[in-house]
Each structure stands twice: as structure tokens, then as C-alpha cells.
């Protein structure tokens, strides 16, 4: 099934306007470690923006974000700062 390629390849087919200066996502590693919510964060994101590094740190590939807000809605307060990218930046749907 050629439409079920890896998530990286799927996102590669989308259009994005990358913001080289600002990231729209900041995670608080300490709060995530203390609350044990890292695994949830990794699972729930449809774009696999979050992954767990070898040292248990959460890595954020914000460039692939689809801007749905699932992470913000599910994560406890203090774990994550998430806002829409600056105007004109981020995902740019051609289909929608």
C-alpha cells in the first residue's frame, strides 16, 4: 500500500514554510520526566513530532507539526508550551 509510507515520507510530501528563527513548541524536560508523560506525548502526536532520545530526553521535530493541538489538549499544564507558528509559517495544506 503505497499510501502507507513512513510518517517522515508522508510529511515530506506536505508543504511547510519553515521558521528558522523561532520554534513554536517548547517542552519542559524536567516536568515531563517528573510526571512520566513523555511516552504519552510521543504516542499521541499524529506527525511524530516528539520522540524519546537515548537519555530519556524528549526530542522535538517541530518542522513536521500539523498544528492540530492534540499535545496541548492532552498534556498536563507545565509540560509543554505550544502555540501556532508565527503568521505565514508552518504547515501549508494544499488539499485540507
Amino acid at each position, binding site marked *: 500500500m503505497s499510501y502507507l509510507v513512513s510518517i517522515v515520507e508522508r510529511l515530506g510530501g506536505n508543504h511547510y514554510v519553515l521558521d528558522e528563527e523561532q520554534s513554536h513548541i517548547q517542552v519542559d524536560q524536567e516536568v515531563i520526566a517528573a510526571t512520566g508523560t513523555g511516552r504519552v506525548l510521543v504516542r499521541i502526536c499524529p506527525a511524530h513530532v516528539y520522540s524519546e532520545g537515548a537519555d530519556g530526553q524528549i526530542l522535538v521535530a517541530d518542522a513536521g507539526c500539523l498544528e*492540530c493541538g492534540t499535545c496541548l489538549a492532552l498534556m498536563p499544564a507545565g509540560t509543554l508550551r505550544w502555540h501556532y507558528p508565527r503568521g505565514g509559517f508552518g504547515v501549508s495544506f494544499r488539499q485540507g
Partner: protein
Amino acid sequence: MEDEAFDAIVVGGGVAGCVTAYQLAQAGHSVALIERGAEPGAKNLSGGVFYCRIMEEVFPDFVNRAPVERRITRNCISMLNGSSFVNLDYWDARLAEPVNAVSVLRAKLDAWLAEQCEAAGVAVLPGVRVDALLRDGDQVTGVRADEDDLAGRIVILADGVNSFLAQEAGIRAKEPARHLAVGIKSVISIPSSKLEERFQLAPGEGAAYAVVGDCTRGVAGGGFLYTNGESVSAGVVLRLDDLEASGFAASEIHDHFLGHPMVSRMLEGGSLLEYGSHLTIEAGPQMVTHDLTRPGLMIVGDAAGFTLNTGFTIRGMDLAAGSGIAAARAAHAALVESDFSQAAMDRYRTELAATFVGRDMRTYAKAPSFFESPALYRDAGLLAADVLHGIFDLDTTPRTRLTAVFRRAVARSRLGWGSLASLMITAVRSL
């Protein structure tokens, strides 16, 4: 300052925002439509079936002029299990005459809506993210974007499900996870001739599948398949609290649905055009119980929570349009009378109550409680398939009458009589 102010500033160029802005401009008011996407439509994503009859009131001949994909004449309500697929398959020529619903791709539709706004005199400002509301005491007086202030006599928030601005205005709090669901969608390219053959469609006609069952691996929500002009929109909608509890990755459930043998046959040979996700509201009727206004401020569309899942129709865009029409009426009256007080803004609720939007939100106020039943997402589909299997599987044993087949299937089902009865009663009471 007075002269520099727009009569209305609309934040967000989706269906609700464009309808509101267009109508206010048509009524002769100066309107700014601010959109954070580089182009209008770039941030917008729906399933998307649009019950679009309401659009004829705003844009006459909408279905022929707007870039819609297909006219939906075939609706399938489906229960998909691991190795069975039960469908209520309803095709009706009357659904095309007049057109009742169309499939749409929002990047195309919303770009067209914004063009109509521009032609009507709206100042369309894309690529601008509104960061805050401007206030004079309690009165909302404009918006701030990129350190620039823009004054408006009325501000209308149409900034979608995540509406940061509605939260800032103190209208919405953080929504409980069980009120929200994430939609994950692949748009898969399939030539129109093949698509029409595969889905039994006349040229221009479309099919819409709403699917519950194993397709979401027991997570509350469902799958969908909508035919576009030359593609299929296929994906899942997953209630957030259940997704979190399930232990599954969101993308894994999407892939499970699209990879199901009965689904993959519909998508065979297709190539991926776009992979997207967007939050949606599961409990619209609960959500819209919050305020919809502040002095100088109204809130429309998804930002306000106007969505409905009635079990058969999954609606958002028509309610967005309807709420936009009501808000534009209230805003027009306020502008004519130069009265932007709380009482003037509350006319919006009165206008809403008089339309199908307010009425339908009340009619289906209890619908979300039906979808809370976990049986829907596994056992109900299996039971339906077991009853049908009992009917069709002529294994040379003597046949029993239908009631006996049904009784045996229920006895074997994990659902049981009690849960089945409660599911039926909830359905009757809420749908």
C-alpha cells in the same frame, strides 16, 4: 482613531469567518479578515462533507460556482470488524436535486471563499497571526498582531477549535479531553474514472462512509472515507481521552483503518497527496453552553463549539456558516445603532436561536452521551455481523427463525441483553 477603525475585524478565514466577513461587507461595512495561513485555507482541514444548502443563502448557486469536489448521493453507515463489514448503504437521486451535501477540500474551498470576500470589499490579510485582543475596560476594541494594533468596532473570533483568543477573552477554559477528538486524514489520489467505478458513482456524484468498530481499535471515534474529484479522503477521528488511555499511537490507528482489507481495496493503487490532522469537537452541545459574546466580541464556528455528530451526519461546516450568518446579522444591527454593549452583542444568541443552528444544537443536546457507550466501538459491530452470519451461513444444520438467531447471537456477544437494551434506549433518547 475613529476613522482608522474597521467596522468589523474577523479573525480566521475558514467557513465561519468568511461567511461573516462577506455578509458584513455586503451590508456596506468596512471589514478586515485576518488569517494566519500564508494563503486562506492553508491551515484548514475537514473530513470533509459539507451539508451546504445553507451556503445558497450567502452565495447563490454555491454548488456550481464554488470549488466543491463531489455531490454526495451515496451515504454508507458502516460497522467494520477484523473480518466482517456491515453496511447500511443508502443511495438516493433526490440527494442531488437539490444538492444536499458535497465533499470539499478546504485549501481549495476556503481560498475561493476568501476571494469572494475580497471581491465584496473585505480587506483580506493572510499570513498574520493575531496574538491578543485589545481592550478598553471590558470593551474589546481590536486586535494585536506582530506588535501592530488594529482597531475594530466589533471583533469576531472565527479562529477555530483551538481558539487561543476565546481563552484569552475568558470565554473558554481548557477543554476536557473527552470533549475533543483528533482527526487524522490521508488524501489519496485515484483517477476519477476508477473512483466512479469503484464507488458506483455517476460522474460528479460522491460517496461518504462513516465507520465505527474495530477500525479504531476500540477507541471512541470512527473512520471515514469521502470521495473527492480525483482522490479519496480517508482517516480516523479519535476521542482524546480514549486515545490516551488506549496505549496505541495515533498514527497506528489511522494506519490500521487504511490498511484494513476492505478499506485498502477502495484505496488500492492510490498515492498519497497529503497527510494531515486537525482537532475536532466531540461534545458540541456541551461546549456551546459557554458564553458566545463579550462587549464588542462574538465567537463563531468551531471556536464556539458548533459541531454535531448525530450518528448519521457529522456536521461542522454548515453550523459554522449558520453561526456566521447569525453573527453578521447581530453585528450589522450593532453597527447601525453604534451600540457595542454586552446587550447588543447578545442579539447574536437570539439570532442563533431562530436558526437551524440553535435549534439543532438543542435537538441533539444529548447525542454525545450515545457516543460515550464503549459497546459502539467493538461489540455492537461484532453482534451485527454475528446475526447476519447466522442468517447467511447455511451450514446444513436446520434453520431457526430470525428471533432465535438474534437471541443466540446476543447470548454469545460480550454486549449482553442489558448493554444492548441500554444502547438502544440511549439511541432513542438522544439521536
